């Protein structure tokens, strides 16, 4: 008996879930019950149909989006046939009389040139075809004609001409929005490229100076440091791919710290605690090294004694949690907030805000840096890196054992 009950539960649960989902998908906001006058109802219906056509058009004018929206637009105009064209082809034909495609494209050359609406009669040999008139309304984006909306009807009607013109203007607005969307995407891509971290000129200068100081006294050490420097610069100057793996980023940090240690000697100590599970995580290229650089700077700034930096990376299921902590001078939280908000330009480097921006660009606003600090209390920077994010793939070299 209990087995039966449990089996029933197992069977009913997915059904309930599916029903809930279907219900939410199909629930129509137009079920206003008995509210409103018939006119209000009609207005609402029209707006609702228009809003249904909008999402497809927001992706631009292609065959697929035209097909999806043509049906809605035809019910909006109430005609027998409606077609959407670009400047050379019919993209979608909804309704009867699809054999008029070629004829309509011939008649379209005029309106597409001038950008003016037109109505013209159709000639048809088919006995059962009722379409006698076509109303053309061009679709324009930034004063350039992109295509046309053609509504076909059995007789000439001034109302239809006006209505088709209005619908075409509304479609044009949607297409303009699509254009805006595209430019915004391009802008974000350009921003990511521009934000791509660069190593600071100070660092190059300081490293070379340190290496130079070893050349006479300890040539072997100088050689090693030069190799570290070469490795680090090769990593940071590479041009392919915007993403790397945590393992490669840690190697770069290692080279970086070797150079820093050569400069500061015993004053700097580092502990690492890395869960091996998160080493393959892909992350934006050079997004942890600036944090370490920042920690070194804060840790050694304005004090003569030792500084300790700890770097931990933990596995938290679907995310990796990276924490970089120093016991240095810390910072006034308000100042930090203003630096991150872009109100004050920081004294040296653009490390933290750059990393924060890039993480938000790639993973979304939930994944910005979390920074805990106070004057004299050190600084703790936490970054959450999802193990999987669409479009994030490391293109780095493969670390071989």
């Amino acid at each position: 008996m209990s087995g039966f009950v449990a089996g029933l539960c197992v069977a009913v649960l997915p059904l309930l879930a599916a029903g809930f989902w279907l219900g939410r998908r199909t629930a129509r906001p137009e079920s206003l019950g008995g509210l409103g006058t018939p006119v209000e109802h009609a207005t609402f219906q029209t707006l609702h149909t228009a809003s249904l056509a909008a999402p497809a058009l927001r992706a631009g004018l292609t065959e697929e989006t035209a097909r999806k929206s043509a049906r809605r637009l035809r019910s909006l105009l109430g005609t027998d046939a409606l077609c959407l064209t670009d400047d050379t082809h019919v993209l979608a034909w909804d309704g009867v009389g699809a054999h008029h495609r070629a004829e309509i494209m011939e008649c379209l050359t005029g309106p597409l040139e001038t950008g003016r609406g037109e109505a013209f009669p159709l000639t048809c040999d088919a006995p059962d075809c009722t379409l006698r008139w076509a109303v053309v309304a061009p679709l324009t984006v930034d004063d350039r004609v992109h295509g046309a909306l053609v509504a076909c009807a059995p007789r000439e009607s001034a109302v239809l001409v006006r209505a088709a013109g209005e619908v075409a203007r509304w479609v044009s607005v949607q297409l303009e929005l699509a254009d805006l969307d595209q430019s915004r995407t391009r802008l974000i891509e350009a921003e990511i490229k521009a934000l791509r971290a660069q190593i600071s000129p100070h660092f190059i200068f300081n490293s070379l100076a340190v290496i130079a100081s070893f050349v006479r006294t300890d040539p072997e050490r100088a050689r090693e440091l030069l190799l570290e420097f070469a490795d680090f610069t090769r990593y940071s100057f590479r041009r392919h791919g915007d993403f790397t793996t945590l393992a490669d980023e840690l190697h770069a940090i290692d080279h970086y710290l070797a150079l820093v240690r050569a400069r500061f000697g015993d004053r700097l100590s580092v502990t690492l605690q890395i869960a091996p599970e998160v080493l393959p995580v892909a992350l934006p290229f050079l997004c942890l090294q600036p944090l370490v650089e920042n920690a070194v700077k804060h840790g050694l700034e304005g004090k003569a004694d030792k500084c300790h930096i700890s770097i931990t990376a933990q596995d938290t299921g679907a995310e990796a949690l990276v924490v970089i902590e120093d016991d240095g001078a810390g910072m006034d939280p308000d100042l930090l907030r203003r630096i991150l908000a872009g109100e004050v330009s920081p004294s040296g480097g653009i490390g933290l805000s750059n990393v924060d921006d890039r993480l938000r660009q790639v993973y979304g606003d939930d994944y910005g840096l979390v920074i805990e600090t106070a004057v004299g209390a050190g600084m703790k920077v936490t970054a959450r890196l999802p193990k999987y994010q669409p479009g994030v793939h490391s293109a780095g070299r493969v670390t071989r054992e």
Partner: protein
Amino acid sequence: MYSGYAVPAVALVVVATVLVGAFGLRISRTTSDFYVASRTVGPRLNAAAISGEYLSAASFLGIAGLVLVQGPDMLWYPVGYTAGYLVLLVFVAAPLRRSGAYTLPDFAEARLASQAVRRLAGAFVVGVGWLYLLPQLQGAGLTLTVLTGAPDWLGGIIVAVVVTAIVAAGGMRSITFVQAFQYWLKLTALLVPALFLVLAWQGDGAPRNAFDEPAAFREQRVVRVDDTLDLKLDKPLTVTVSGTVDGRAYEEQRLDLPAGTHRIEQSTRLTFDKGTPVPRADPASGGGMSPSRAENRAERPLYATYGLILATFLGTMGLPHVVVRFYTSPHGVAARRTTVAVLALIGGFYLLPPVYGALGRLYAPELTLTGDADAAVLLLPERMIGGVGGDLLGALVAGGAFAAFLSTASGLTMAVAGVLAQDVLPARGVRHFRRGTVLAMAAPLVASVLVGGLPVADAVGLAFAVSASSFCPLLVLGIWWRRLTPPGAAAGMLVGGGSAFLAVAATMADFPGAGPLHALLAWPALWSVPLGFLTMALVSLATPSRVPAGTAAILARFHLPEEVRAEVKA
């Protein structure tokens, strides 16, 4: 078997798991040496972790129980559980790793760029995870009952609470080490007692009639019947009874039962003489248990065997807790090497449970009567060796069994909770993951209290069937067929996985009872897997315009080794 050592052994395993989980990272990786700290998990360690997570209660207890009841036919179970990794190795391992996906929904999204398919895959991950968790909790309940006489539900609740606490507290920080530790623990817990048992068997004159039909009692044996059952006799049987048989009460009376079916009421004690063949038993109808599906297997053994083979061979690749472990491999080649090592480790492990099953047929044949066949592994050390040594070995086995519940349950809970937190529950954040954990464990816990009696290995088989009919088509076609479309994938998963799921539900609800239809529903893989593949392929072919835009680039990434890709890009 109420041994004083078992409870400390179980407690020790739980504590050791928590400690390794919490501090393994600290011990192993606190260093300022970058080379040591950023060393990736090698194939062997990762393989031990995957094996540790994979070897569940079904492997540890269930297989021995099935071999005990059904004989050598059941060796298909370990073969299937192992061979699943061969299919995984050949078709899936390296491309899956290269896809960069952490979970199966991630893979669906990476391949098909569709949120809807992602959510559907998430739903199936939760379904398969719950189906797989259920037998883990039941197994824990059974183990604790056998060891201490505690009520059925207590073991399940202990495992549920421990696992939820560990996972929710984020205690599995070094999960690879924990799971690798669990593998070696489980292997030791079966291997060491097995050696002693085989020695004892040798000392007993090495009787070789383990698989004689029917099994016979080797010495006088008292059997207490806990649940009312029907005894089916082919030949007359002489037995000493105290209790109720066929509605009449007896008190220590010798009874000659003629051939036919006899009803034994609960709490009856039967004393069998040495050499008596063990009668077949059916749990009586209305006795609170679903009839063992094993009984019906006898009706169509060939069909059931093929169903089992298909489910286990193709289902392994879709197990949510197995897939996430492959992410730890640094690249595709390492993922393949890991899979080869897993094959070796699991293959080695699976040599042991059949030994217990065979010895169980010799030394504890009455377990087929009481329905506790899954407990054979736990009972044998005490039965065959006895004394303090037997108790200690029994405690070791018990500890290993709990390790099996803990490792598999924690891996599954993490996988299910991850999906619940990411794709189902609304907001995000750490506390949110904890809510997901509780939900992930609560559902199977409630179900395990409600559903009794489904044999552990069978219940796991159902989870495999659902996984094989939903995720196997998605993974195989997703990796090897460029014309797969989102609607095709969704339809294939819904039809294949959904029908397998309904079949599972019908089986659990004991719907058709018996006959060919029951067999079809009890072993759905043989029809639901082709159905899933066919639907996915046909719907994909019917919607050619929906092939995702970047398919060629995505498939190139799946199949090109990482070095080649890096060179091409450079």
